[in-house]
């Protein structure tokens, strides 16, 4: 009680001392060091400044698509949208604030280039944006809707799940809204907190009729986005916002497609399979090299890329599948040579553990490959809490948590 009173007094003094929202450090105030200080104050700033939990690893320059240019993720998205609007005269881009270039600069320059009839702002109504997009798509035009943050996609959930996803099915293929693509910034960003960091892919995974895609890099983003736009099904394209500036790569200037529903084996291995998507791919890549270095364990790293419909074959073949069953599946030529049977699977994502997409992967893999598994499938995910602000470094499944889970799987 006395302690509470004491703290209350100090807080009052603090408030008096630091009016205007700028907290000042109280030397010798008896408060825990660093309490109530802004993150960038004084010489302790280095301690406090958050280090990103991953290191972006660019892929080698692609040579088969012509001239390339150094682009970060948002520039790659702009390039893809530019290509789409140039190629398809019915394509339109709309959303909140897209006209001036977008809050993440993904649509910079497009309105000047293509006119205000093709790149325009909508009022602040996500449900209306998606509903409007569905309507345009049904008439046959290509609709590219932007939701300002994936966290705000929930008012449009009804439109996506009940209208867009079911349009073709309920009309017996008479009508469809396949030319709709919804883009939204996704995932943690270091300071996003509850409503600027969410990864809602699991909610949409439960809905047949739409496709959900998450790229890991600028090169992947442009190819996957162009595939989504051209795909004849409504697609949701989540762009990891922390990679908008942090990820820089050589990206082809001309349009190109990366196929949907195909996972990519980024690194081959024989002991453990690691699966992730978006930013988390870079985390598990680091985990793979840590495992190789410290444990001598060879990891296979897979980027899922499309969340639904997801590439069951690649993951199962990697985690473990009897050779006989392989005849039933279609194999690409290089995969045919390397039938990898690791028997261990680790899936990682930022979204909360319960009901996250890792549970679907885990469940399917144990159904398909039960006898081939050497250890229980490991899911390294966010906690079952809303996405925290201050606790973000504790919340996200960083490389140490993944490494720890991997070690436990190896020693099972």
């Amino acid at each position: 009680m006395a302690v509470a009173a004491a703290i209350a007094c100090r807080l009052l003094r603090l408030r008096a001392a630091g009016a205007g929202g700028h907290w000042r450090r109280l030397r010798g105030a008896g408060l825990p060091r660093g309490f109530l200080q802004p993150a960038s104050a004084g010489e302790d700033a280095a301690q406090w400044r958050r280090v990103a939990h991953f290191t972006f690893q660019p892929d080698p320059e692609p040579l088969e698509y012509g001239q390339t240019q150094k682009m970060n993720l948002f520039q790659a998205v702009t390039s893809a949208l530019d290509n789409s609007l140039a190629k398809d005269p019915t394509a339109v881009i709309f959303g909140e604030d897209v006209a001036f270039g977008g809050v993440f600069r993904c649509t910079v320059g497009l309105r000047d280039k293509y006119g205000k009839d093709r790149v325009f702002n909508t009022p602040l109504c996500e449900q209306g944006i998606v509903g409007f997009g569905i309507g345009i798509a049904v008439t046959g035009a290509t609709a590219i809707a932007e939701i300002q943050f994936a966290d705000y996609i929930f008012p449009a959930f009804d439109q996506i799940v009940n209208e867009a996803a079911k349009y073709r099915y309920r009309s017996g293929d008479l009508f469809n809204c396949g030319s709709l693509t919804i883009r939204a910034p996704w995932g943690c960003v270091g300071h996003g907190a509850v409503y600027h960091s969410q990864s809602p892919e699991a909610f949409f995974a439960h809905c047949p009729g739409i496709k959900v895609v998450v790229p890991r890099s600028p090169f992947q983003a442009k190819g996957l986005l162009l595939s989504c736009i051209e795909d004849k099904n409504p697609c949701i394209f989540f762009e990891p916002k922390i990679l908008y500036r942090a990820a820089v790569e050589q990206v082809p200037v001309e349009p190109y497609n990366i196929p949907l529903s195909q996972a990519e084996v980024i690194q081959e291995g024989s002991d453990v399979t690691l699966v992730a998507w978006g930013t988390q791919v870079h985390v598990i890549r680091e985990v793979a090299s840590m495992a190789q270095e410290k444990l001598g364990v060879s990891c296979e790293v897979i980027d899922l890329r499309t969340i639904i419909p997801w590439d069951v074959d690649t993951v199962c073949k990697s985690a473990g599948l009897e050779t006989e069953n392989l005849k039933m599946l279609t194999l690409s030529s290089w995969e045919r040579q390397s039938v990898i049977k690791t028997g261990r699977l680790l899936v990682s994502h930022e979204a909360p553990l319960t009901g996250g997409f890792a549970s679907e992967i885990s469940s399917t893999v144990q159904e398909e490959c039960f006898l081939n598994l050497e250890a229980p499938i490991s899911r390294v995910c966010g906690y079952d809490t809303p996405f925290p602000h201050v606790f973000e470094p504790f919340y996200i499944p960083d490389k140490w948590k993944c490494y720890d889970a991997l070690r436990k799987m190896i020693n099972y």
Partner: protein
Amino acid sequence: MRKMLAAVSRVLSGVAQKPASRVLVASRSFANDATFEIKKCDLHRLEEGPPVTTVLTREDGLRYYRMMQTVRRMELKADQLYKQKIIRGFCHLCDGQEACCVGLEAGINPTDHLITAYRAHGFTFTRGLSVREILAELTGRRGGCAKGKGGSMHMYAKNFYGGNGIVGAQGQIFEAYNMAALWKLPCIFICENNRYGMGTSVERAAASTDYYKRGDFIPGLRVDGMDILCVREATRFAAAYCRSGKGPILMELQTYRYHGHSMSDPGVSYRTREEIQEVRSKSDPIMLLKDRMVNSNLASVEELKEIDVEVRKEIEDAAQFATADPEPPLEELGHHIYSSDPPFEVRGANQWIKFKSIS
């Protein structure tokens, strides 16, 4: 054929007519058209509304009568089939509201686009689908307009986007009003106000029951939805307004449904039978049109009765088809989820069941 019809009509009308007088009827001269006075519409943010008089030609009159009668009989047949459990699931009937769908169609072009909610059978018919296709869709057979997979609420046709199971759209509609007004979209928003939302009367559900004013910045009109001529004129007015580029407009049609909200709702727990009876006897749309036509010599009672008979037969045939047509094959369960090439597999209720999805 004519003799058979004449015989049937004689039996039905119970009037003894010699063949000679039948010929008389055929050569009796009717008026080509007649002018009628219609109720003035209430206006919101409009200086002038639709005209208060309209001209109805004999041809149009007969066509509207036939269409309304078809919709009425089709709905009653659906009611019958539902009670026989040949139609399952949900079934929202629109008998009583025929003037709305037929009047609306009379005021627009076939190339205009129409979308509606779940009380859609009437609109599906007026937009061009046959009764056979509609009833077969209700019974879930492959002859149905959505191949039997959509049912009552998901019927689609050219320039008709359904048939949608809309609920909870109160917020969405204001977003739509905003966008339509902002971008001056040529859109007529129509409220078929049948006085009840499922079981709640409008007075108990809406802070303002003047729905035609709820568009706020969008002009609106309130129309007598039981009088087909009123609906037609209002629709023509609204369509002209939109086509002239002035932006969206709202139309509230005051109408009534005889059945309950859906087939699971008896329709009498929140309103009295007397009320239903009163509307039926005073404002039935088909009766109103019939009286007008007969009284102005646009048609004879016998002629209209003939139409009744023909319509009845058509509906019977359609019901027969709808009952006898086979159901869509089980393989269709997985089709048209995605547009996919090549076809892919859809997982079933357990891991050993798989369907192929083609689109």
